[in-house]
């Protein structure tokens, strides 16, 4: 085996060991999974049965309309998990231990990414089941449905990296919580996630129409064949939701991944 292949093998092994470490944390503190399990269930019940009766969706059933919004909102809150665990780890002496070991330096990052991605997949499974229970259905063919789930995984991956960057630059885990709530609540609510954007006042409507969250939600509704309630005069991103959703994810990843890696290098430089 060449030296390069050997390094790759060891790097992968290191990443899996560290991913295993993060997953053990979840086993010790199952509350860590609340944001991807209990919280989406709560939102499903809240919107489907509390607000849902008062929200009318042109051309469709609210429960079918709602689920894409829940999916994307939950994945967006997925920035929290990686941000918290990175911020915690970077403030601890255990990082010095890792840095003094003969392991691949990148394994610390990839270990987090692998573990958090698995947590996000668990959240997707919970939401899918919850959606089916409240009457949400996929109305498209297998290819579109697969593309829909593929998009969900891409969004989960994108949010995860935003969280990695946030956790690396934040001064503490507490700072992370503050930032996440201030940014994510308005971002997911001033969008088409839970109500058709047409019902919003005009300024907020413009914001909602150009909000990347709206593109992601609309793309998901399109791929799953759920009502989209997109008005005919909506701007380009909402007229082409799948293309704009992919562009948003690609653009965010292109910016955030290098920044997160650079920030991690800076935090751990000798």
């Amino acid at each position, binding site marked *: 085996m060449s030296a390069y292949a050997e390094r790759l093998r*060891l790097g992968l*092994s*290191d990443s899996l*060991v*560290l991913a*295993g*470490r993060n997953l*053990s*944390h979840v086993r*010790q*503190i199952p509350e860590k999974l609340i944001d991807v399990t209990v919280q989406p269930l709560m939102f499903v019940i809240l919107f489907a049965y509390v607000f849902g009766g008062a929200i009318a969706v042109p051309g469709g059933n609210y429960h079918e309309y709602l689920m894409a919004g829940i999916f994307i909102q939950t994945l967006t809150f997925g920035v929290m998990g990686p941000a918290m665990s990175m911020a915690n780890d970077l403030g*601890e*002496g*255990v*990082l*010095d*231990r*890792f*840095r*003094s*070991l*003969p*392991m691949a330096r990148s394994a610390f990052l990839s270990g987090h990414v692998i573990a958090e991605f698995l947590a996000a997949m668990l959240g997707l499974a919970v939401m899918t089941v919850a959606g089916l229970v409240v009457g949400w259905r996929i109305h498209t063919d297998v290819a579109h449905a697969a593309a829909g789930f593929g998009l969900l995984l891409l969004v989960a991956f994108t949010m995860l990296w935003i969280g990695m960057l946030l956790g690396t630059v934040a001064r503490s885990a507490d700072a992370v919580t503050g930032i996440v709530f201030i940014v994510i609540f308005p971002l997911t609510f001033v969008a088409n996630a839970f109500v058709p954007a047409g019902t919003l006042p005009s300024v907020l409507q413009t914001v909602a129409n150009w909000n990347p969250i709206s593109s992601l939600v609309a793309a998901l509704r399109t791929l799953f064949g759920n009502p989209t309630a997109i008005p005919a005069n909506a701007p380009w991103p909402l007229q082409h939701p799948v293309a704009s959703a992919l562009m948003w994810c690609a653009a965010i990843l292109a910016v955030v991944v290098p920044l997160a890696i650079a920030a991690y290098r800076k935090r751990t*430089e*000798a």
Partner: protein
Amino acid sequence: MTSTQDAGVVVEGLGRRFDELWALRDVDFAVPQGSVLGLLGHNGAGKTTAVKILTTLLHPTEGRAAVASHDVVTDAALVRRSIGLAGQQATVDGLLTARANLQMVGRLYHLPRKVARARADELLERLSLTDAADRLVKTFSGGMRRRLDLAASLVAAPPVLFLDEPTTGLDPRSRIDLWALLEELVRDGATVLLTTQYLEEADRLADNIVVLDGGRVAAQGSPAQLKTRIGGERLEVTVGAPDELLPAAAALGHFASDQPVVDGDGARVVAPVRAGVALADVVRALDAAGVATTDLHRREPTLDDVFLAITEPTTTAPEEIAA
């Protein structure tokens, strides 16, 4: 070819600057293979900075250092394979069990899974942590964490060990256990660099001592050499009023192996005591000199005494107090 000296630790002209402040400057020392170096100094003396540089966590601003014949900057990856570190902040994961921590560290040293498991069990046993092996580390006492941290540094049986204040915060019993363990490791051939604030600890464990002060080497040598410079046991006298300091110092002079030192703040006079001096004689002499002694005791020399002895200009001689 590698000389035995090179297989330990060699430090030449080492310096590290943080912004405008030199945490370490012009430091030279060597730890021959199989020996123990005690890096002695107060908080902020540069001990941790030195350990961080030698364990590849920090780059030096100037100078060079080699560990196990590998340069710490250019061959950092090779250095990491040869070292174990027990840091000052206990560097173990609080959300894992003790066993899981050690197994994880073993896997990150690239030991096969089975070997990592066996090694973890062996070290838990050796550090008397078997009963707590499956408890989360966050529930551990400070002393248990320290022991686990030390176990983590031993997982790969590295030839060079760095222990940053390994006994700080330990109760006396755990400290003695840990000393015994370190002596055992050294018998097995480990090269050890340990930092400490306690002269007694460095004296007991180290073959050589480097005293750091303000990032620079204030003194170095074997414990015997250092003791020759600083003398042995101290006689410490506390007096009731400042004007009694001078007569007290004069009276103590008869029993001292070196000039008594006056500590005006504490109203104390300290002198290295000659062998065979009886405290009763000292009390009588003080009484005869008209000193109202509030406290008198013998004690082992401390790091402060080392500094007093080696940094002569800051020592206040009794004559100067009178002026």
